[in-house]
C-alpha cells in the first residue's frame, strides 16, 4: 500500500512542480478558473485513458480508441442533424452503446480468434476511419448544422465547472469502484498479473480481455459525443493520432505495459500531467519549434521516474496473500 501511495504521490508532486514552474512564466495559469479549464480540457484524455488502462492491465492495447471516438462522434452528429429534437440523453446513450459495440468487435477478435491486440486494433482503427468516409463522403458536419442543445450540454457550467469536467469525475468514481470492488475489476488485474494463475482460479482470460475492450470502447464512444459537441465540428480526421496521447497518459500514470499493475488514480494523474503540458505550452511563450521536443522529453522523464519507483519484487493478485510472502 505504501508503494502504491508513493508512486502516485511522486506524480502528483511532479504535476504541482510543473504548474509552479509554469506560473513563474505565466502567473494567470494558477488562477482557479484556469485550472478548472485545464481540467475540463483534459477530460476527454482522462476518460479515454481510463478505458485504455483497463485494456493495458489485461496485457492488451487498444489503438482504435481515437478512431472509435471519431466514428461514434460522427454518428451522433449525423443523428442530431437528422433528428434535432432528439433529447441529448438519448444521444449519450447511443454513443455509449455504439462505442461499446465497436470495442466488442476488438474484444471478439482478440478473444475468439486469438489475434494479437495490436494487430486487431491497428486494423479496426483504419476500418473505423474508413467507415466515416463511407458514411459522409468526406464531408464535414459543422456548428450551424448541430442543434444548440447538442453542442451546449458539455459546456453548460455546473457548480463552476463545465459538464464535460463532471463527466470525467463521474467516470473516475465508477472506475475506481469497478476496479477495486467488483469481481470484474479484480479479474482484470489477475489476468494481466499472471494469466496462468488466473485460469486456475477460474477466470476466463479471453472473456476478461473482451470485457476490457468493451469498457474501453464504451468510454471512447462517450468521449466521441463529448468531443464533437465541444469542438462543434465532425470530420474524418477528428482526434487523429490521439490514441498515442492516451497510451502515453497510461504509461506516465504508471500502468505497466506488461499488464497487471496500475491504478485509476495513477492514470488520471498521467492524463493530467499531459494535459497541463498541452495547455501550458501555448501560454509560456516557447518557440513552437521546441514544443514537440519538450512534450516528448517530459513524457520520457515522467516514465523514467515511474520506472525507478515502480520496481517491485512481484505482482500481487490476491490482496490477502500480500502479507503471507
Amino acid at each position: 500500500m505504501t508503494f502504491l501511495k508513493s508512486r502516485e504521490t511522486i506524480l502528483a508532486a511532479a504535476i504541482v512542480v510543473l504548474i509552479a514552474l509554469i506560473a513563474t512564466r505565466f502567473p494567470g495559469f494558477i488562477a482557479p478558473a484556469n485550472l478548472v479549464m485545464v481540467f475540463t480540457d483534459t477530460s476527454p484524455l482522462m476518460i479515454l485513458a481510463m478505458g485504455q488502462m483497463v485494456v493495458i492491465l489485461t496485457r492488451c492495447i487498444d489503438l482504435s480508441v481515437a478512431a472509435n471516438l471519431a466514428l461514434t462522434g460522427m454518428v451522433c452528429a449525423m443523428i442530431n442533424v437528422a433528428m434535432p429534437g432528439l433529447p441529448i440523453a438519448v444521444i449519450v446513450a447511443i454513443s455509449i452503446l455504439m462505442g461499446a459495440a465497436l470495442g466488442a468487435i476488438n474484444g471478439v477478435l482478440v478473444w475468439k480468434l486469438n489475434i494479437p491486440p495490436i494487430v486487431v486494433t491497428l486494423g479496426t482503427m483504419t476500418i473505423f476511419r474508413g467507415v466515416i468516409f463511407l458514411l459522409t463522403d468526406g464531408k464535414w458536419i459543422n456548428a450551424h448544422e448541430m442543434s444548440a442543445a447538442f453542442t451546449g450540454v458539455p459546456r453548460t457550467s455546473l457548480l463552476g465547472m463545465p459538464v464535460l469536467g463532471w463527466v470525467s469525475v463521474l467516470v473516475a468514481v465508477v472506475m475506481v469502484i469497478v476496479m477495486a470492488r467488483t469481481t470484474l475489476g479484480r479479474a482484470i488485474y489477475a489476468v494481466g498479473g499472471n494469466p496462468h494463475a488466473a485460469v486456475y482460479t477460474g477466470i476466463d482470460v479471453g472473456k476478461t480481455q473482451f470485457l476490457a475492450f468493451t469498457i474501453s470502447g464504451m468510454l471512447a464512444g462517450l468521449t466521441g459525443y463529448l468531443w464533437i459537441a465541444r469542438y462543434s465540428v465532425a470530420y474524418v480526421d477528428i482526434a487523429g493520432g490521439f490514441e498515442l496521447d492516451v497510451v502515453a497518459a497510461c504509461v506516465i500514470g504508471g500502468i505497466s505495459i506488461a499488464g497487471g499493475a496500475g491504478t485509476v488514480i495513477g492514470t488520471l494523474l498521467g492524463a493530467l500531467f499531459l494535459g497541463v503540458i498541452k495547455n501550458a505550452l501555448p501560454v509560456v511563450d516557447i518557440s513552437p519549434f521546441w514544443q514537440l521536443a519538450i512534450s516528448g522529453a517530459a513524457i520520457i522523464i515522467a516514465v523514467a521516474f515511474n520506472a525507478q519507483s515502480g520496481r517491485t519484487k512481484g505482482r500481487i493478485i490476491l490482496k490477502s496473500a500480500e502479507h503471507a510472502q
Partner: protein
Amino acid sequence: MKLAKLMTSVAVAAGLFAGPVSAEDMRIALVVKALGIGFFEAAAEGAEEAAKELGGVEIIYTGPTDTTAEGQIEVINSLIAQQVDAIAVSSNDTDALVPTLKKAMQRGITVISWDSGVAEDGRMAHLNPSSNALIGNMIIKLAADHLPEGGQVAVLSATTTSTNQNIWIDEMNKVMGNYPGIEVVSTVYGDDLADKSYREATGLMQSHPDLDAIIAPTSVGIVAAAQAVADAGNIGKVNVTGLGLPSEMAGAIDSGASKSFAIWNPIDLGYSATMLAHQLATEAAKAEPGAEIAIGRMGTITLDDTNAAAMADPFVYDASNIADFKDIF
C-alpha cells in the same frame, strides 16, 4: 429548340477538344493533401465540371487519408503504375515529392501542382489559387478593416512546415507597413488539429488580454479559433478571421465570433487545375515562362519565371453573403 441548340454547341465544343485525345479517355489524376477535406472535395467537383466540358476526360480524385508526404508518394507511385496522362497535385511537402514526380515526368506524364506547390524541378507548371501577395494582404486587411483605430492581432497557423501558410504569413509581414497601428503580437501553430488549435487560440487570449483579432489562414484553425472565442465569452471583443470555407464558418458568422473571412472558390480551382493539366497534356499549350494559357471559363493565366500562375483574387464572405454559399462548399 433551346435544348437542341445546346446539344449542338456541346457537340461542337467536344469535337474541338476531343481531336488530339483520340478515342481513349484522357485520365487526369487530381491528387490532394488528404481525402475528406471539404475544400478538396469541392475542388474535385470543379475538376469533374472541367472534364464534362472538355469531354473524353476521366478524373481520378485521390490522395492519402492523412496529410503526409509519404502517403502522397505512395498514391503517385500507384498512379504512375496506372499510366495516367496527367497528375495535378496539391502537395504536403515542397521537396519530398520531387523525386517521385520527376519519375512520373520521365514516363511522359504531365505533372502540375496546384494550391500547395512543389519545387520547380518536380512539376511543369504550378497553379496558385491566387497570388501569395494578394492572400497575405487579404488576411491582414480582413482584420484591419474592423480595427480602424489599430490594435493587436495574432496568427494561428497550421503546422510549422506548412508551405502555404508560411508564405502567406511572410507576404502579410511585408505589407504590414500599409496598416499602421496594427501589431502582430504572436504566431502560433495548431497543426490543423481541432483540439490543438482550440488550445492555442485559448492560450493567445490568455497571454494577450488586449488581443483584437485572430488571423487563421487554415480551415481547421479558423473554426477551432471561432469556437474558442465563443467559449471564452469574447465574441465582439476578439474577431476571428482568415481563410475558411463558408459551410464550416457559417456558425461562426452567425454567432458573431467571425465578422468576415476569405477564400477563393475551390470549385474554380479544381476546374482550372484540370484545364491547365489538359492543355499541357494535349500539348495545346507549352509550359514556359511567359506562356499564356486559356483555362476555359476562368479566362487566361500567364506563367511567370518559375512557371507559376495565379488564378484569381480571394473572395470575402460575411454575414451578407454567407447564406448563399454555405450550402455550396
